[in-house]
Each structure stands twice: as structure tokens, then as C-alpha cells.
């Protein structure tokens, strides 16, 4: 987010000289070109996906495209058993760890902030939560799971899901 914003604002010529990929674009390219092969049976348990603010809603507002469908397509290649949260995409709830709040002393506030997201995840009854943001990952894995009685929930990066489904 910051890098793309900064490049657009201060180094616009960068885009004439170099190509760019988001993590989603690159994974999709490898899958579509057949450069990686995935086995869906590696993820049999019910999964759900959390839209990160930065790659979703904020990308939509700042760059004109929110990465909503891309991660869902990727999950479809890794699993036949997943459900969405509601609300999602542009209207998702932030996990509570955005904006650098993981790095402030306001832990109690951050955990309370995450209650809505925790309720949503619980409502899906999923065993596996897929995320595509490092802050979300830490918030779910280290805070919300513990604070909201979801310790059996596995939290996994989207790229870990892909890596684990790879057939070499």
C-alpha cells in the first residue's frame, strides 16, 4: 500500500521503467500458466477468508481496484470447502490491527476493536482462516484467537495455502 502510493506520488516514472505485481497477480499468473500445480485435497477442512483493508477497500479507493476476486479465485484453486464472511469485500470489518495499531500500547482497544471480526469468523464455523496481510495474521493468530475463544482456528497466509498445496 505505502510503496504503491509512494511510487505513484513521488516516482511516477517508475511505472514506465518497471513492471509491478501484487502477490495476488503473481500467484494467479503462476497458476494460470501452469508453472505451479496445486492439489486441493491438501485443504479439506472448512476455510474462510478475511479481506484485508489495504488490498481490498483501500486499494479500491486509492487505486481504483480492490483485490476481492483474486484471492477468492486463488482459494478456489486450493480448496473445495470454504465459505465467505458477511459483510465482506468493500464492507468487511477491519481485524483491528490496521494503521500500525499492533505497534501502539493500546492493546485492550485493539482487541476490543476486533470483536466484530471475531464474531464474523465464528459465524462461519470455519476451522481455517486464510489471510493476505501480515498485520491481520498477527492479530488473528496472537490476539483474537486467544481472546475470543477460537484457539482451534488455524490462521494461514494465502501464500502459505498455495505453497502447501503445491505438487512438485
Amino acid at each position, binding site marked *: *500500500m*505505502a*510503496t*504503491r*502510493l*509512494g*511510487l505513484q*506520488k*513521488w*516516482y511516477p516514472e*517508475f511505472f514506465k*521503467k*518497471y*513492471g*509491478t*505485481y*501484487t*502477490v495476488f497477480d*503473481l*500467484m494467479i499468473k*503462476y497458476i494460470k500458466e501452469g*508453472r*505451479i500445480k496445486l492439489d486441493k485435497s491438501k485443504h479439506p477442512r472448512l476455510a474462510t477468508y478475511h479481506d484485508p*483493508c489495504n488490498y481490498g*477497500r*483501500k486499494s*479500491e*479507493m486509492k487505486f481504483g481496484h480492490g483485490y476481492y476476486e483474486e484471492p477468492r479465485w486463488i482459494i478456489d484453486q486450493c480448496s473445495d470447502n470454504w465459505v465467505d464472511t458477511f459483510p465482506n469485500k*468493500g*464492507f*468487511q*470489518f*477491519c481485524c*483491528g*490491527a*490496521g*494503521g*500500525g*495499531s499492533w*505497534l*501502539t*500500547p*493500546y492493546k485492550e*482497544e485493539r482487541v*476490543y*476493536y*476486533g*470483536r*466484530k471480526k471475531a464474531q464474523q469468523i465464528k459465524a462461519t464455523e470455519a476451522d481455517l482462516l486464510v489471510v*493476505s496481510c*501480515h498485520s491481520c495474521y*498477527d492479530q488473528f493468530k496472537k490476539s483474537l484467537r486467544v481472546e475470543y475463544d477460537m484457539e482451534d482456528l488455524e490462521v494461514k*497466509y494465502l*501464500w*502459505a495455502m*498455495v*505453497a*502447501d498445496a*503445491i505438487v*512438485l
Partner: protein
Amino acid sequence: MEALDLINVPETKLNAQQAMACFTCATCVSGCPATGIDGFDARKLVRMAVLGMEKELIDARWPWICTMCGRCDYACPMGVKIGDLIRNIRSLRGRENVPGTLHKGVTAALKTGNNFGIPREDFVFVMKDVAEEFADEEGFDDFEMPLDKKGANILCTVHGKLPFGQTDDMKFWWKIFYAANESWTIPSENWEGVNWALYTGDDSAMKTMVGRIVENMEKLEAKNLLFPE
């Protein structure tokens, strides 16, 4: 009679985000998970900006409890940019009073090239060490860590927390690159992918950090940048 122009008002740093256009409908408040924390109320925050209550806003905890998730902006019928307003308020606070480790990380990043202040030799050691560990896994025995490789197709940054303490989590992308037979590289200097200056409202530091990524692209003659996760 001319229509009342609520958009083109003289701008100050804190009412420049169309704050004057606010209808006070409180859609932002209803949709925000932070509403009520410490009395946080996005509508009041916008009013305070319009009323010129800069000092109160700068001293408040509100802008740091908000996660800048943008749900308010997304729903606002008048296009008030509350997230940008929050960032501008954050930017006006004295750097010594930025809460937690945010500004310390920015300072470390400017000095060392990463938020955790990891020296280059330590970073190189960790990366090579973890790479050896990875090569021991079945199917990856000829894996080599492509640090500072020139002319790669993809240049990657690294999230500072990974070499700092979550090294296993770096292996997922390595595995994907290996399987896809990709030509990629990680710079051994200024490799940080996370720009905390976005959160502290520090444009000068943010620009420096982004500029270093551009320099690495030039120096290593990379073709494409993989945006930090």
C-alpha cells in the same frame, strides 16, 4: 441566489479532506468498530477538524485507536476522507509523542534500512541460514538464496518481522518461486517492505523508504517489483 458551496472552502491541513461537506449523518460512526472506544466518534472528529480544534485532535488518542481501515470513507455519502484526515492529525503530533514503537521503527528504518534495525551482516546470515534449512527439505535440495542477484525478473522486499523472528514464514514464497522456476532476488540492503511512515503520517520518511526500493531496482537491474505483502 447562488448555491451554497460546501466543497470549495479554504483548506487547512485538517479540513482539506472535504470535512466541510459532512452532513453529520453518522454513517461513519455506525459502521466503525472503534466507535465508543475512549468515546471515539468519527463524526465528532470531523466536526472538530471543521471547527479548527487542532490541538485537541493532535493530543487525543482517537487518531491512534482508529486503524485507518477506510470503512467510514467507503460509506460516506459526501466523500469525506476521514482516513486521510486521521493520517494528517497523526502527522502533526510531535515525533517524541508518537505512541509505541511506530516512530522508533521509522527512525531505525531511516538509519539501517529496516524497521527492526537488523544489520546487513546479520540479515545475510539469517537468510543464508534459513535457506540452508529450507534446502534440507525434500524436493528443494538445490535451492539457493538469490541475494543481490542482478537482472532478476522479480525483486522482493521482506517484511521486517520475518527475519527478526518468524523466519519459517519466509519459506512459503521461496517454495512458490522454486516451484514456478522464477528468477527472483532480495536486496541485502534496504530490503524492508513495510513502511511505518504511512501510519505515522511522515511523508518525508515514507518517500525515502520508497526511494530506496527504486534504487534497489536500478542497482540490481530487476525487471519487476513484487509489491510488499
